[in-house]
Each structure stands twice: as structure tokens, then as C-alpha cells.
């Protein structure tokens, strides 16, 4: 039975692992013979790609909040709503639950993602190895939750195609929908560029070279 502290990494054993098909090769191998993916033990340029996409994501998130997400025209009024403005309007109409979904998906999650990715990228250099576990969990959450921010873009798409009732009511998309979609996509690319294996690298890898490689354990 292996304890968590003593599981060696492929890198510590002088091997390189394929992130696509999990096969392991000698560290000099550059392309995985099984799945043709390129092999990199630790991607040195990973962090600069993370930061580049991150910056693009943050930049596009600003106009996404300033411009209107959609314009509603009815017989009586014309209103333009930003992301936050639309949610506030929903609360006034009593749909608190839906307003919360929108606020969580379009404000809380994107902002939390910006901070999380920045924290993870910074933690690679000076992170405490004992926090690897929680940092990895944070990374998985960022990866899993990030896509759900697209929901507001889809809502705008559905509403603007559906609500076309000539003079009675019509909804048209605003410029914010484009910059918001781009912000979500760039942030997803930023998270994908991050090489999570770096979170587990120990400061002194030498002592782990002696550790035994455990068997995989399976549970029903």
C-alpha cells in the first residue's frame, strides 16, 4: 500500500508521460509512439501561454460588462440591459433563482476564475508542496466550471432568435455578448494551457528516486 507522499512521478524516474494516453516513455522521447501526441515532461512555455490567454480573457471581460448584453423592445418601452443590469431586473420581477444563476455564471465564476488561474500560475514557483492537493482541486474546479459561463451567451442567442414578434416584442443581441463569449473562450484556453503536473513537483526530487512505483488500485 503506497502512501500519498511516496508516489514517484514519471519525471522523477527519468521518464516522460503522455498526457493524452497515459503511456510512459524514456525522457528523450519527443513523440508518443502510441497516440502520436507530442511529449513534454514539463512544459516550460506553459506559464507564458497561460498568462497570455489570461490577459486576453480579462481584457475582453471589461467591455462585456460595460456594453448591453441585449436590447428589449416592446410596445411600451425599449430597454438595454448589461449582465448585472439584467440580473437586477430579474430580481425586481421576482425571479431570484434565475438572477442568481446568471450572476453566478456570468460574474462570480469568471472573476473567481481569473483569480484562481493567476494564483495557480504564481504558486508554481513558490508554492508549498504540502498544498499541492488543494491547489490541484482548485485547478480541476476551474477546468470543470469554466465552460458553464457560456450559458449567458446561449440565453442571448435563444432569446434573440425566439422573441421576434414584430411590434409586440423583440430582443436583439448587444456587443457585450461577443466580448463575453471571447472572454470565456480565452479563459478556457488559459486554463487548458496550464500544466497541472507542475503543481506536484517537489523542491528536492532526488530523494524520491528510490521510492517504489505502486500498483494501480481499483475499486468497484
Amino acid at each position: 500500500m503506497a502512501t500519498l507522499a511516496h508516489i514517484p512521478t514519471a519525471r522523477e524516474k527519468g521518464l516522460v508521460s503522455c498526457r493524452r494516453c497515459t503511456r510512459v516513455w524514456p525522457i528523450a522521447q519527443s513523440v508518443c509512439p502510441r497516440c502520436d501526441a507530442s511529449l513534454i515532461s514539463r512544459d516550460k512555455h506553459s506559464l507564458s501561454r497561460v498568462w497570455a490567454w489570461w490577459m486576453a480573457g480579462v481584457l475582453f471581460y471589461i467591455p462585456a460588462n460595460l456594453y448591453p448584453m441585449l436590447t428589449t423592445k416592446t410596445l411600451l418601452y425599449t430597454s438595454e440591459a448589461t449582465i448585472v443590469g439584467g440580473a437586477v431586473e430579474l430580481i425586481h420581477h421576482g425571479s431570484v433563482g434565475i438572477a442568481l444563476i446568471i450572476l453566478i455564471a456570468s460574474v462570480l465564476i469568471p472573476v473567481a476564475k481569473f483569480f484562481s488561474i493567476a494564483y495557480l500560475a504564481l504558486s508554481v514557483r513558490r508554492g508549498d508542496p504540502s498544498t499541492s492537493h488543494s491547489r490541484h482541486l482548485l485547478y480541476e474546479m476551474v477546468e470543470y466550471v469554466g465552460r458553464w459561463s457560456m450559458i449567458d451567451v446561449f440565453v442571448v442567442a435563444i432569446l434573440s432568435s425566439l422573441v421576434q414578434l414584430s411590434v409586440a416584442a423583440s430582443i436583439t443581441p448587444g456587443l457585450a455578448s461577443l466580448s463575453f463569449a471571447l472572454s470565456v473562450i480565452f479563459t478556457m484556453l488559459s486554463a487548458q494551457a496550464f500544466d497541472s503536473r507542475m503543481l506536484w513537483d517537489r523542491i528536492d526530487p532526488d530523494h524520491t528516486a528510490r521510492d517504489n512505483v505502486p500498483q494501480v488500485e481499483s475499486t468497484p
Partner: protein
Amino acid sequence: MTGPAAVPVEDLETLIACPQCDALYHAHAPAKGETAKCLRCHTVLISPKNRAGMTIIMLSIAIMVLILGALWFPFLQISQSGFRNSASLVDAALAFSDGPLVVLSITVLALIVLIPLLRVMLLLYVLWPVVFDRPPADHARAAFRWSETLRPWSMAEIFALGCAVSLVKVANLARIDFGPAFWMFASVVVIIVIQDRFMCRWSVWNSIDPRHSR
């Protein structure tokens, strides 16, 4: 940098490394229905299922038929004071039709229709020969690699939740009804989730490994 290689090169085939945290293990296929997870970060490494290949193929065909069908039927219908309108999936995707928003139309169409459809076709291409005991298809490895790359970009389930949100958003503006395509699309979402549970990437890569092929 690295310690001495304690593992002889000829044994590499029996090893497996966690793609998320690089932890190294001796691999052996668990019994069908069991799951092997990384002890450190709990990423699922191996999870073979009974008759998984055939199940995935059948679910893939179902997804393909349902997505193609959902394109033609009305998705949502709206009515208010005598005015009626219905929107199909394609209408929703093409809602951003003016100026720079066209880019968004193409993106939305790709995320909710093209990418889910493409993934299913790639999977069929990869798994069909494997399940029917033929040698792996040419470019099967590239096809499976693409299908895996596209996985986070297939957003059908997010679109389905978007429908529910839209419904409430315009509830006070007009009456909305679900069209047949909505129910087809909702079942696609459920089937995609089930299909993903049957998928053991380790087994697929093994089955299309060029050095294992007959």
C-alpha cells in the same frame, strides 16, 4: 534534475502515469465495472465496462440521429397577443447576424451542433473496427486524439440549461412552449452523459495501439 532511472526500459509498457499529476503506477486492467483512480489526485485512470464499445457505438448513433433531427423541428415556440414565432436550433445559433456578431453565430453553431456531431462521428470511426474485430482504421489515433481535444468544447448540456433560463426570463413578456426539437435535444444531453460514463480512454488507446493490432 532527475534521479537515476529505476525502471528498466522494457518494463515501460506495464507503467501508467496520471495525466494530471504525473504519478507513476504499475498498470493492470481492473475487473470490468471497477475503476482505478490516481491515489494522489483521484483522476480516473482506468475504468473498463462490460460491452462498452458496442454501447458507445449505439449511443453515438442515437446522438447523431437526434441532433440531426433536432435541427429540423421547432425548438421553442412563443406567442403573445396574436403574434407567434418559433425558433429552431439553427435560428438560435444564427441569431447574431449583424456586423461583428456573425463570428458569434458561427461559434455558437459550432459549440452546440457541429462539435458534438463531429465528436460522435470520430468516435464511431475509431470504435467501429475495434468492436467488429477489424484492424484499427487508418488515422484512428488522430481521430481519437481530436475527439478528446474537442471534449470541453462540446457544450450541448450548457445550451439545454440556457433554454430553461430563457424560458423564465421572458415568462412575463410572452408565453413559451417547448417544440419537439427541445425534447430531442434534452435526450441528447442525457445520452452524452451516459456515453461518457462508458468511455475508458485507457482501453481505447490500448485497442488502437499499432503494436497490438493483428
